[in-house]
Structures are given as C-alpha cells and as structure tokens.
C-alpha cells in the first residue's frame, strides 16, 4: 500500500534538490529580469529612454561644373578672446591681425569694446588655427564646432547663399535646394513594447544629396574680379554681372559686388545677402530696345532698313519723349536707331507695333514673370499693362526704351539670350545635376518657349553687331563678332520722379554673334565717374568676354569658321 520508506525518502530528496536548483536558477533569472525592468540596462545610454538620440545627417556638398568644391560640412573654429585675461591688447591684436586677415586696429577696438568673451572671427583653415594655438596667447580661445564651410569665401556667395549657425539655409542654392541638401536626420530610441520589454528602434540618417552647379569656378572668379574692378573704377554703389550659355540657359557665373563671406556673414547691411541679379528689379533702359526692335521685326511692322524721321522729340500719350542727347537724327534706319540708341525711334516703333502687340511680346519675353531659375527669392519685376488702372498711354513710349517698367537683371539677360539663341528662350538654371550616392539626376536644358522667329532674331543680331562695330566700339573684341547694346537708365525716387544725378549703366551682349557661347550682362548702379552704359559697363563686358573666350578656348571667328 505504501512505498518503502527509503525509496520514498530518496525520491523526495532528489526531487527537492532538483527543484531547489531550478528555483535558484529561476530566481536569478527572474531577479535579473526584474532588475532590468526597473533599472536602466547598461547598454542603454543616459537619456535614451527620455528622448531619442538624433543621428545627424551630413548636408550635401555643392560643387561647380567641373567638380570643384564650393560648400561642405566641416569643422569651423571660432576665435574668441577673454578680454579680462589679456593684459596687452595692442600686442595681441597685432599678432592676430595677419592670421585673421583683419586690421589690427579693428581687433584692438574689439578687444577693448567690452569685458568677458569677445568673438573675434570664425576661421576654417587648419593652418591658421594651428598658428594661433602655437602662439599660446593667454585669453585667446579656439572653439571648434561643426559648421558649413565655403572654401572660396566670397566667391559666388550670392548664388550659394549660406547656412547659419542654427542650421537654417538662407538665400541662393542652399535655400532653394534645402530639402535635397539637408538630408534626413536619423534617430535611435529605446522603447517599451506591450509587454514592457525594452527594445531599440533605429532609423539611420540619410545624408543630403550633392549638387553640381552649372557655375564654372574659374569663370565666376574672372567675372567677380572684373566686376569689382569696374565698380571701384567707376565709383559705383553696386555691380551685377551674369554670364549665361544662351543655348542651354546654364548660368556660368553670377556676381554681385559688394558681396560677403558666407563663412563669417559679418556685414553692415544685411541687404547684401540678397542676390540682386534676381531679387532687385531695375529699369533696364536702352538695353530693352533689343526687345522692342526684335518684336517689331517679328511682327513684320519694320525691317532693318526701314526708316523714320527723327525730330529729336516725339509725343506719346501727351508725354514728350526725347533722345538722350536731345539731338535730332533726321531720316534714320532701324539699324542706326539701335546703334545710336534713339529713344524717339524706339517710341516710334512701339507705337507702330501697337500697345496690344507690344505688351504681348513683353509678356512672351517673360517680363513681369518669374524666370523659374532655381535660386531662392526671385522676384517678378513689374510691367504695367493696358487695362491696368495705373497704365497710361505714355507708358507705351517710355517702356519701349526700358523706362517705366522693372525687370530683374536675369530677366533682361534671358531676353537677350533668347535673341542670341535664334528666338528660343531657355529657362535659366544653376544646378546641372543632383547626385545621391550612385544615383545621378541630370537636369537637362529646358526650353521656355519660342519668343520670336529665327529670322527676326538673326536680323537683330546683325543690327547689334553693326552697333558694336560702329558706335559701341568699347565693347568690340578683335577677332570676334560681338552683338551688344548699352543702356543708361534713370533711377526712380520714392517721390516718383527720376533722380537727375544718378543712373544705372549697363551693357548686354553675346559672342560670337553667329554661334553664341556667352551671353553677358553687366550692370553698375550709380556710377559716379562715368554715367553712361557704354563708358562704364561696356569695358567690363569686353574684358569679361575676352578673358572667358580665351578660358573656354573659343577661337576667333576666322579660325572657327575655317575649321567648319
């Protein structure tokens, strides 16, 4: 009935031993689990549970057309000084001045301006940082931090824009392509599932895409150098220059002077950040006559040899319009009208064309509309149209020679480039391709539309070549047929009247005239030495064109045509 006592006892002992052993194991396991549930595991870093760890994405680099780096994420160094710890401020300023490329007086003024920590300058060149550190100046701090570096400093600043210390992209390509460049930050977060168990959730960072621009670093460098010289020589307030390939709409260079260093962004007036080539409409003046004449030729109301009688004055809508030099030219051909830039003739042509057609062409050329260039903060400019409340009949006259309307420099160059490109307008663009790892997205040239016939465009080209060869000779380049037109416009004051003292001098043209490789626009705001476009802007146009033709290996017409 009962098991033998020894056997039963043995069985119970063994069972208890096994159970105890298992209980110990289970107790350890359960204890460990309980510990892990209520305490942070060793592999979970502090604050992991409180908030996810952000895995930063690298912002994409920006390169020029040939792969030269223009913008990159790297370490920048803030050079700061604890003024209280510096005994000899003058000496420190003198030692730092050549390294920071700042005047010693300015640094000394900064060091004396206030107590505590003073920001002197931001640098990104390692050798400068090393030199400062080697000096061992007491009170001078070098603080590294991640930032955006523009290795060419001021070069193409107006096109590139910048990324500020908070990581916000502003202006230019940086702002326009921010969603491509910035990438997507990843995260690593510790979560608890329904059972209360810890688990990792990792979203890897996705780096931003790289951009390759149509801008050519060397072209940009030449354009900026020439523009700066033109502004200084003519004592102008500002200069703008754009170089475009008229056959593709690719912008090869876009410069504004004065400019700024996007690394430091130390400017007196923040308006300098704006890219005036797209964000500052101006009255283009006589360069606009190209549009008036080619429109009339396309409409068939004139031919290059058509004549009109120039009395030096004409009344349009009750307003008297006269030539810039107040002279009368008598019987004049359209070719001479363009060469001598006669306002009376332009008004005569626009009246002959009629308001409806004239403004139709103005719209076709894209004035009053965005060009669609891939840069941030482009403006449309404005053109008063018939039917608008503030349009007046006299506008037809004044608009014909580029006054009473506002266009951005890029709009004006696009119109000229359309004439250069046999009447086909291309959409301007600055990004040539987007590179995302192995995936390359080419941005092909886009046709904005045909604005005038190829015949009309060819006729105006010949007229413009004639103008440069005979009147606007300061723009002529030996060996090349240059088509161009100068412009000198008045500047409207807030009162509505024109400033009698100030002008905007400009020159637009393309070269070689029969197979244009370069369309160039140079604008000088308020030049004091020379007020006229032909004298102030044309030499800069010529120098830019001449140097770029050599750089791009465009042979003289004779050589080029003989090769064909």
């Amino acid at each position, binding site marked *: 009935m009962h098991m033998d006592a020894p056997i039963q006892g043995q069985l119970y002992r063994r069972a208890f031993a096994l159970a105890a052993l298992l209980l110990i194991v*289970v107790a350890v396991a359960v204890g*460990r689990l309980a510990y892990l549930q209520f305490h942070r*595991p060793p592999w979970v870093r502090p604050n992991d549970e409180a908030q996810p760890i952000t895995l930063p994405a690298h912002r994409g680099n920006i390169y020029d057309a040939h792969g030269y780096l223009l913008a990159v994420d790297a370490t920048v160094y803030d050079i700061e000084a604890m003024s209280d710890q510096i005994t000899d401020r003058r000496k420190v300023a003198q030692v730092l001045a050549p390294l920071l490329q700042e005047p010693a007086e300015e640094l000394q003024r900064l060091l004396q301006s206030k107590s505590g920590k003073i920001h002197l300058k931001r640098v990104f060149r390692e050798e400068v940082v090393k030199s400062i550190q080697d000096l061992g100046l007491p009170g001078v701090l070098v603080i590294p931090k991640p930032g955006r570096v523009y290795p060419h400093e001021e070069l193409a600043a107006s096109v590139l824009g910048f990324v500020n210390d908070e990581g916000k992209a502003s202006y230019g390509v940086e702002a326009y392509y921010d969603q491509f460049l910035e990438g997507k930050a990843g995260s690593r977060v510790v979560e608890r599932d329904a059972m209360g168990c810890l688990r990792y959730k990792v979203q890897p960072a996705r780096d931003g895409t790289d951009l390759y621009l149509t801008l050519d670093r060397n072209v940009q460098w030449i354009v900026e150098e020439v523009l700066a010289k033109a502004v200084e020589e003519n004592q102008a307030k500002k200069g703008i220059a754009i170089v475009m390939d008229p056959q593709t709409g690719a912008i090869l260079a876009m410069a504004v002077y004065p400019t700024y260093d996007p690394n430091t962004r130390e400017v007196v007036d923040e308006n300098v950040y704006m890219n005036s080539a797209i964000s500052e409409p101006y009255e283009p003046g006589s360069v606009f006559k190209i549009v008036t004449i080619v429109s009339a030729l396309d409409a068939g109301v004139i031919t290059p040899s058509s004549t009109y009688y120039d009395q030096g004055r004409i009344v349009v809508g009750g307003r008297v319009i006269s030539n810039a030099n107040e002279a009368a030219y008598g019987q004049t051909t359209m070719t001479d009208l363009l060469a001598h830039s006669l306002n009376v003739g332009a008004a005569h042509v626009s009246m002959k064309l009629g308001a409806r057609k004239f403004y139709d062409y103005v719209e076709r050329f894209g004035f009053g509309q965005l060009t669609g260039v891939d840069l941030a903060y482009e403006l449309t400019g404005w053109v008063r149209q018939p039917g608008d409340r503030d349009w007046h009949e006299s506008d037809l006259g004044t608009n014909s020679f580029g006054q009473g309307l506002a266009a951005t420099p890029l709009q004006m160059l696009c119109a000229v480039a359309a004439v250069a490109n046999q009447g086909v307008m291309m959409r301007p663009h600055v990004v040539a391709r987007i590179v995302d790892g192995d995936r390359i997205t080419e941005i092909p040239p886009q046709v904005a539309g045909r604005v005038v016939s190829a015949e009309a465009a060819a006729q105006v080209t010949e007229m413009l070549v004639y103008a440069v060869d005979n009147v606007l000779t300061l723009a002529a380049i030996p060996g090349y047929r240059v088509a161009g037109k100068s412009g000198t416009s008045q500047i409207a004051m807030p009162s509505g009247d024109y400033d009698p003292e100030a002008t905007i001098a400009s020159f637009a043209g393309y070269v070689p005239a029969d197979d244009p490789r370069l369309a160039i626009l140079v604008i000088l705001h308020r030049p004091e030495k020379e007020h006229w476009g032909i004298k102030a802007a044309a030499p800069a146009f010529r120098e830019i064109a001449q140097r770029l033709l050599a750089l791009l290996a465009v042979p003289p017409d004779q050589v080029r045509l003989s090769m064909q």
Partner: protein
Amino acid sequence: MSSHRTMAAQGEPLLEGVVSRDAVDRHVTGTLTSKAMLRQSSEVSPWFYVLALLCLVSLLAFLYLALANYVACEMDETAILEEKIQKTKDANNKLRLEIVLKEDPVRIQQEAKQMGFAEAQRVEYLEVVLDEPAASPASSGQQLSVTGASSAPGWWDNMVRQFRDWVASVRETEPRDSP
C-alpha cells in the same frame, strides 16, 4: 499478501509442489513494487508539473536574456559602426576641403607668379594638320617615283608647313599689335 490472496481467489493455478517459495516471493515483491511506483507517480505528479514549469520559465528567461544580450551587442556594434562612418565622412570632407584649398585660384595665381609665369596677353590659335592615313609602301613608292617628291616623311612636311603658317600669322598680326 492481499494480492496473493486476490490472485488465489481469482483461481490462478498454483503449481502444486513445483513452485518454490522464492519464486512466489519474487512474484509478490515485483507486483508490489510496480503497484507502489504507480501509486507514487500519482502522488508526485504535481511536483513534476512544477518542475517542468520551472524548467520552462528558466528556459524562457534564459532565451530572453540571451536575445536581449545579443540585441544589445548588435546595437552597440551598430552604434560604433555609425560613429566610424560619421568619422570617415568627416575625414572625407576634411580632405576635400584641403584639396580645394590647394586648388584655390588665388593661391595658384600667386604661386605661378612666383614661378615666373605671367598672364598671356594674346591667345593664338594654330591650325593643326593631322597626318594623313599612312599609304601602303607600294603605293607610296609608286607616288615618289612618279612625282619625285621630297623624301622627308609626311610628319616633317606637316611640321614645316605649320611653322611657316605660324610665322606668316605672326607677321600679319605684328603691325596691328604694335603701338
């Protein structure tokens, strides 16, 4: 004993005079042991269930811990790799920056000037005449014998011709360039 009786009662034949006492005892003992085991198994079965449950829980706990450990190690490794990738990218950018600073046009211009280079004042384009495709020896020999042309090779003639063209073009441009 009761079992023996039960078996007798059931009429199981006992071998008369042949069956030994030992055999009977063995039979009785074996029967008793198996019965006791059966009873004992029904008595300890809850313990076995507990033990089995404990084993299962232990196994699960072990698996959980092993998995958690594995995941943690993987995550740690991933984090290390991510850090390495970041550092590599930073290093790449740093190198790119160094390269572009070496390629800086201003620096190149300065160095070129120091080396004695100057900007070209005039660019001249020369016509480059490529060698015509080489004729077969037979045909060229025939041509020479017929025309009696120079025995100099074609590339030499081309070079001489290009040099003459260049001299001529320089002479043409000289008056225009002179002040």
